[in-house]
């Protein structure tokens, strides 16, 4: 039996499609329901649908043996898990964005609004820049417009939302994509099955 944590939403749907082609189907998943847990005993697989930012926690604590999660979540949580494969989809960038006419005042700390305080902190530490973190939970783009912050650190996919709000990317911190992760202890006792999934995924996504 292998337990898999999937993020709710588009990324999770895509990964489930992939798992189906590998023979880990669970027809219930296709039904429109509010269930959070799906099992196919015959195939020896159980899926949990969780909030994307919680996937790494489910895997780190061993509730799930493996999971798929964005690199952004992994970097932010610094979870102690094995990162087995870059799935190559869900691609975007972690970036610093500001108003198009923003000019940085280097004599005072930079105010940074973000959902990713750890990523922002370690990025600016590596540049020796003093910052003040303003932790937000959504609509990050609003912060510089209304004067809450100087810049934002956020995920940028196409840049459309930024443009529509008069913002632009100033610096790219790190490229992001979906990763296959595994619990360290599960890996030791289910190595064959986990690596089979990894190898098949690698073939299918063509890396």
């Amino acid at each position: 039996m292998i337990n898999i944590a999937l993020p709710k939403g588009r990324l999770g749907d895509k990964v489930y499609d992939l798992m189906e082609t590998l023979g880990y189907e669970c027809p219930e998943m296709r039904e429109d329901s509010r269930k959070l847990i799906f099992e196919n005993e015959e195939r020896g697989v159980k899926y949990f649908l969780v909030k994307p930012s919680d996937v790494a926690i489910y895997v780190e604590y061993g509730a799930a043996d493996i999971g798929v999660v964005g690199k952004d979540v992994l970097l932010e949580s610094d979870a102690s898990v094995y990162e087995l494969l870059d799935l190559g989809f869900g691609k975007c960038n972690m970036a610093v964005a500001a108003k198009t006419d923003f000019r940085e005042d280097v004599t005072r700390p930079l105010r940074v609004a973000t959902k990713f305080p750890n990523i922002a902190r370690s990025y600016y530490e590596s540049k020796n820049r003093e910052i003040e973190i303003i932790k937000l939970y959504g609509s990050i783009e609003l912060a510089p417009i209304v004067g809450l912050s100087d810049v934002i650190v956020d995920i940028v996919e196409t840049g459309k939302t930024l443009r529509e709000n008069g913002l632009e990317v100033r610096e790219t911190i790190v490229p992001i994509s979906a990763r296959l992760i595994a619990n360290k202890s599960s890996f030791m006792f289910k190595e064959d099955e986990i690596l089979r999934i990894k190898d098949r995924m690698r073939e299918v996504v063509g890396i």
Partner: protein
Amino acid sequence: MSFDKIRSEEELYSVLASLASPEDVKAFLTDLCTYNEIEYMAQRVESARLLMQGATYQKVISEVNVSTATLSRVSKAIKHGSGGYRKIFSEYLKKNGAAVVGETEEDIIYSLRSLYESCGYSAFKMRKFEEYSLYMENRNFLSSDNILTFRDNRGRLLALKPDVTLSIIKNTKATAERSEKYYYHESVYRYERRSGEYREINQMGLESIGASDVYSTAEVIRLALESLRTVSPEYTLCLSHMALVGGLLEYAGADTFDKKRELFSSIKRKNEHDFELSAEKYGISGEKRRLLLSIFDMRGSFDECISGAERLVVDEGTKKAYEEMLTIGKAADAAGFRDKIRLDFSVANDIDYYNGVVFRGFISGVPRSVLSGGRYDGLVSKFAPGIGAIGFAVYLDDLAYFRRPSEYDVDVLLLYREDSDPAEVLRRADEIRKGGESVRVERGIPEGLTYRRLENVDATGTDDAR
């Protein structure tokens, strides 16, 4: 002549004790018992063995054709019996090389202590705090920079100890020929990233200080394997060698400390894709890059991996490390641990202090590693030049995940009335305890307490469990 129960029972015990060989026992029992009686006894013995080796009820029932009622009696006898199973039978099993699993944390601590003492390790006791400077000067050896500090009455800065090893080695008198061997059972205080709080962590471990040879490594690895076996039959010890991986990285062109550390951090996460990006960044290409990436292809048994690892030998240093791993594998193999060790390069500790074999132990069902250790000649030589040291720690708190909670808080809840005779209540409680059951004496039923059966002192008969 009337039948004297006690005398004839004693005759039975002494004739059993006089039986010297399994053949004699078989002959005697065949005459003494019916075929069915022998079969039942054999089933109980097997059930007891499986339970003591950590099997679940379901597993015992599926392997031995035994009823739930019998199994629950066997389990009770293991827990509260007269020691027939828990002491005599488990010592017999250990003597014959079988694993016996600790039932409670105390059992595990007790077994580990006897294991370490049986190999000549002596107990090391220490204070809860140390001078902060000890940790400050050896920060990289610790898993975190966050240390709880306070000032004593003379203004010295002290710290609640986040680590035991430093306290043991700081005043060592060991030399390469005269080792010091210690084990400890202590609390350490560490910052936990996830909760953002400090935690008291209960750990047990050992240090072998002085010798830096392969024998001392093999001995400590054997003790690590036996420690894991004390906890569960499903365990594995992952081994790596810092000099093998480190030497390979240097050979491939990771010439600075930072480059090595970055590449190591990807290896630790089994993260091949980011490793490739780093290799690209540092201009490692061609044959050297392919060689490095083959680290990620190691999978399967120790034997398969170690033969695959031969191609990682690129110079004298890696050759020595490789041969050390071979010897250690052979030593583990000879003692029947072949299936329990793996070669896994994701095991890595600080590259400054750890220079030899490093290892981590896992138990099926526990999400984190429960044992971690390695050779840290680089650290100990700061305190006493020219000597080596190796050790490991067992994280007792994480083992709590693995233990089966017992079904009931207590076997018997014994109720008395205001006018009950205390002597009579105690007499009845003694009787129950002598029968191998636990008993709690109360006036009423305590909130939330679960029990196997209920008994009133002044009434006859018992009620059902709740």
